[in-house]
C-alpha cells in the first residue's frame, strides 16, 4: 500500500471516502446563517450540513455547486483536497521571512 493510500485510509470518512476539506462553517458564520437556513438554501437536511462541516461526508458535485451558488464563490474557494488556510491569510499573505 502506498503512503498516499495509507494516509487516505487514516483520514477516510465514515463511508470510506477521502475527506474533503471545506470552509462551510467559516462562510456560514460569516454570513450569519444557521445550519438550518443553509440546509434549506441548498436543499438538504441540516444534519448533513453538520456532517460536511465535520468532514464526515463528502458532498456530490451537484451539492458542491449549490454551495458555491449560495455563497457566491468558486468551488475551489469552498472545497479542497488539501487543508485550507484561513481566508485572511489568503487575502493578506504574510511576507516571506528573510
Amino acid at each position, binding site marked *: 500500500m502506498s503512503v498516499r493510500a495509507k494516509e487516505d485510509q487514516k483520514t477516510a470518512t465514515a463511508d470510506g471516502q477521502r475527506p474533503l476539506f471545506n470552509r462551510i462553517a467559516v462562510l456560514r458564520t460569516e454570513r450569519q446563517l444557521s*445550519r438550518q437556513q443553509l440546509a434549506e438554501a441548498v436543499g438538504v437536511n441540516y444534519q448533513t450540513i453538520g456532517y460536511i462541516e465535520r468532514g464526515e461526508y463528502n458532498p456530490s458535485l451537484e451539492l458542491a455547486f449549490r454551495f458555491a451558488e449560495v455563497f457566491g464563490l468558486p468551488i475551489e474557494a469552498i472545497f479542497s483536497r488539501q487543508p485550507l488556510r484561513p481566508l485572511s491569510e489568503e487575502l493578506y499573505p504574510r511576507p516571506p521571512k528573510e
Partner: protein
Amino acid sequence: MTTGSLRPSHPLFAIDRVAVALVIVLIGFGALVWLEVVDGAFLYLLFLLATAFVVRTVEVEPGAWLGVRLVRRGLVVVLTLITLDLLTMHTTDFVNVGIALLVLLALGDVALGRATRRLATADEDRIDERQEAMRNRAHRIAYAILATSVGLTVVVAEVATPESRRWLSDVLNGGAIVTFIQLLFFSPAMVIAWIEPDRIADEDGPRMHRDLQTRVAYGMVTLAVALPLLMSLSLAVAPVRVSAFTRPEPALLSPSGERTDPCTYFYARAQAGIGLGARIPLTAVACWNGTTAYEQWGLNASDCVQSVAELATLTTIECRRATASDGSLHFTYRTLLRSPILPFVSREVVMTLDLTKDGKVVQFP
C-alpha cells in the same frame, strides 16, 4: 431531495407501523393468555401499549440522546440479544417470557425507528443525498447479514447430517420466525443506528418541545423500563401471599350403609411477586382412619404442574407425597421462581400438607 426539516413519509410497511402492529397483535395474544385473571403483568402490557402511543406523538428530536451513536449501538445490542434469546427459547417458555420479550422487542424497534428517523424506509423524495447513500449502504449490509443467516440455516438443515438437523430443530423453536421478521424488516435500521455518526448538537436545529406531553412521554418510558426491574425485585422482596382454607367433606356411605372415613377438603394458593411471579395452588381431599392418613384425590404429580407463572420461569425442585411409618401423610411441592430479566433474582416457594393419622393438620400450606 428534501427542503426544510426532515419528515419521512409513512409507507404502508414503515418500520413504526410494523412495530405498532406487532405490539397490537402481541397484546391481543397477551389478552387471550391472561383473560382469566387481570393481573399486574397484563396491566403492564397495557401500559407499554399506552407508552408506545404517547411516545409516537412526541416530535423526533435530532441531537437528543437517541442521536448519540453509543446509545444507538446499545439499542442495537439489546435488540440483538432479545432476538437471540427468542431464537433459542424453548417453546414452553414462549407463552410467558416470550411474549414479554416480544413486546420489549417491538418497543425497541419503535425506539430504533425514532433513533434513525425512519431513514431505512423513507421515500427518496424526502431524504437528501447523504441519507440516501447511508440508507442504500445499510440495506446492502443488512441483506448480506440476512442472506448469510438464512443461507447458513439452509446449509445446516439440508446439507449437514441428521444430528445437526436435530440440533437445529432443537435450537430454533418458535423464535425463528420472529428472528427472520426482525432481520427482514429492521436490520437496515439496526445497521443505520450502528454506522451513523453522532448527530450534530442542536445549536440551531429544531428545538425540542419541552411541553407536558414530552415530559409525560419521558416519564412513561422511564416507568416502562423501571417497572420490569421493580417487578423482578418484588419476586425476592415482596412476601408470599398465601390464602388457605379447609372444610370437612361430607361423609359418604359405603354400599353396605356404613359411614366411610372422615375427610377434609384442602385449598391453598400462594402468590409470589407482583406482576412478575406465579400463583401456586394446592387442592386436595385427604382422609384418615386412625391408622393412616391418605389422599382421596389430589396430592399427585399432576398437582405440581398447576402453577401459573406470570412473566417468570418456574422450576419444580420437589414434588413428593409420602406416608410415614406412623401413618401420617406428607406432601411437599417445592418450586423455584426466577426472573427472566434479572436471572439472579429468584424465590423458592414451598407448599406443604402434613396430616396425622388422626386427621390433625400439622402444617398447611
